[in-house]
């Protein structure tokens, strides 16, 4: 039995979890900073780092307490190395290094995106995975389409060329004067809206698996805002120079139509990739995979089994980091005991395609 303590601080959640054999969650603690960042309309790096510093110690203690174990019963400590905000990542990495040194436990650095993938291995009841699978990782900061042929074997098929899917939700939420984060609020508004009220542009029907949401965002803006007058534009007040929400639009209809367009873009490319590469299943992970409409449409349009994590594992958490660490050293590196990475650095921009399955040392990918 292998017990791993996972730590995740790549963005705005301070999280710690204890996971057994990469599949069983013994504890999963997340201190959310959403309220803190709502006033800024998004994650604010310096605030995030400070909040991580305050919460990391109690969050880890609680994770151990909830699991009913002491630190010395842990086999390894896993921590997110990147991608993410540098200040936030550093808090987790430095704390984990201290913990590993003090307890003489091996330390493992984990790629956050690989963590999201392994959140699928934590869903209960677990059904064995038959590779290859196509994985859509969608969140506030990421939109990635990955072909997974085996543990640790990732081929990046595409990603966003501009805004991440969650960011598009946030920006349109802002246009519609909905609170942060945009995703859940737009989904809520869309329930009572007509998804065909507006025909917003879908993805270009090209052969690539890259996504673009910038044009969709611009189309929504054109539809729902009034441009400032030339006089106002020349004025000094920034607020008057910006486009304002029209008073005669139905926020619910715009939310529903926008959500439908965005979901269709995600579903079309993912389903096409699954078909082209003979995937047995489609996996979704990340905060936006919690979107109900996305889940429905993906199942319906792809005609393949679709897996996604429970809500608590869609958003950032540390259980997925512990699970990814377990699979990395057990199945990918085939080590009896993990090699500690005490001198590792933060890697703020780190794609899955840059994840070697041979090297687990401290070199920069």
């Amino acid at each position, binding site marked *: 039995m292998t017990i791993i303590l996972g730590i995740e601080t790549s963005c705005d959640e301070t999280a710690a979890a204890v996971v057994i054999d990469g599949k069983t969650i013994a504890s999963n603690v997340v201190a959310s900073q959403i309220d803190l960042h709502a006033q*800024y*309309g*998004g*994650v*604010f*790096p*310096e*605030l995030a780092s400070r909040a991580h510093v305050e919460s990391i110690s109690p969050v880890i203690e609680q994770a151990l307490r909830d699991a009913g174990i002491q630190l010395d019963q842990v086999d390894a400590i896993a921590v997110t190395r990147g991608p993410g*905000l540098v200040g936030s990542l550093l808090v987790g990495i430095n704390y984990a290094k201290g913990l590993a040194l003090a307890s003489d436990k091996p330390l493992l650095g984990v790629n956050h995106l690989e963590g999201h993938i392994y959140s699928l291995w934590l869903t209960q009841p677990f059904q064995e995975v038959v590779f290859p699978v196509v994985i859509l990782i969608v969140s*506030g*900061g990421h939109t990635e389409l990955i072909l997974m042929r085996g543990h640790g074997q990732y081929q990046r098929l595409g*990603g*966003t*060329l*501009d*805004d*991440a899917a*969650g*960011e598009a939700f*946030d*920006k349109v939420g802002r*246009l519609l004067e909905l609170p942060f984060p945009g995703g859940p609020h737009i989904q809520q508004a869309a329930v009572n809206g007509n998804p065909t009220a507006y025909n917003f542009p879908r993805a270009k029907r090209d052969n690539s698996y890259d996504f673009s949401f*910038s*044009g969709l*965002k*611009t189309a929504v*803006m*054109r539809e729902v805002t009034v*441009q400032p007058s030339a006089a106002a534009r020349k004025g000094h007040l*920034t607020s008057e120079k*910006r*486009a304002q929400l029209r008073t005669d639009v139905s926020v619910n209809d715009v939310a529903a139509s926008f959500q439908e367009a965005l979901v269709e873009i995600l579903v079309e490319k993912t389903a096409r990739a699954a078909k082209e590469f003979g995937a047995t299943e489609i996996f979704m992970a990340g905060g936006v995979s919690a979107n109900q409409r996305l889940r429905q449409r993906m199942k319906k349009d792809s005609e393949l089994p679709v897996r996604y994590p429970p809500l608590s594992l869609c958003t950032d958490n540390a259980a997925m980091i512990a699970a990814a660490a377990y699979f990395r050293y057990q199945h990918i590196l085939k080590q009896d005991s993990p090699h500690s990475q005490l001198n590792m650095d933060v890697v*703020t*921009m780190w*794609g899955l395609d840059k994840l070697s399955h041979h090297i687990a040392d401290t070199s920069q990918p």
Partner: protein
Amino acid sequence: MPILKPDELDIISISAEQTRRMGIRLGKLLSPGDVVCLSGDMGAGKTVFAAGIGQGWGTTHQVTSPTFNLVHAHRRQADHVIFYHLDCYRLERPSDADSIGLDDILDGDGVVVFEWPERIQPVLPKHRLWITFRVLDETRRNLIFQGNSPRYVDLITQFRESTYGV
């Protein structure tokens, strides 16, 4: 007043693709230490242009929107110089710029591109290339380049030459 002012260039892009190509042209001309400010409303083409700058300048990663993270740092393979891409939209006041480490960024020898620079106007470097993006219609955008030091006037001249040959 002459139509061609050396410190100003007023051009129209007919598509996002053209805006991107203009960015590529500018990116090829930038040197370490250069500061470029992209000002305009949401959807006016700032990020498309910045992605072009990154491409022309030689980043290995796809340049995507920095709105979520506020700062993206792309290192160029050839000489390891960093291309900083900042989005100041969510900065409420100039003092917030401290929190994203603006001083360190500006003290370095990287290329720095700002979106929503007007948010932190008082703490921006005095000399910079300022590009204003205006939405003309669905696809067309008006780009106005303004330089306020010899370096940026020179940059505009080079950009004009590479675009129009004059």
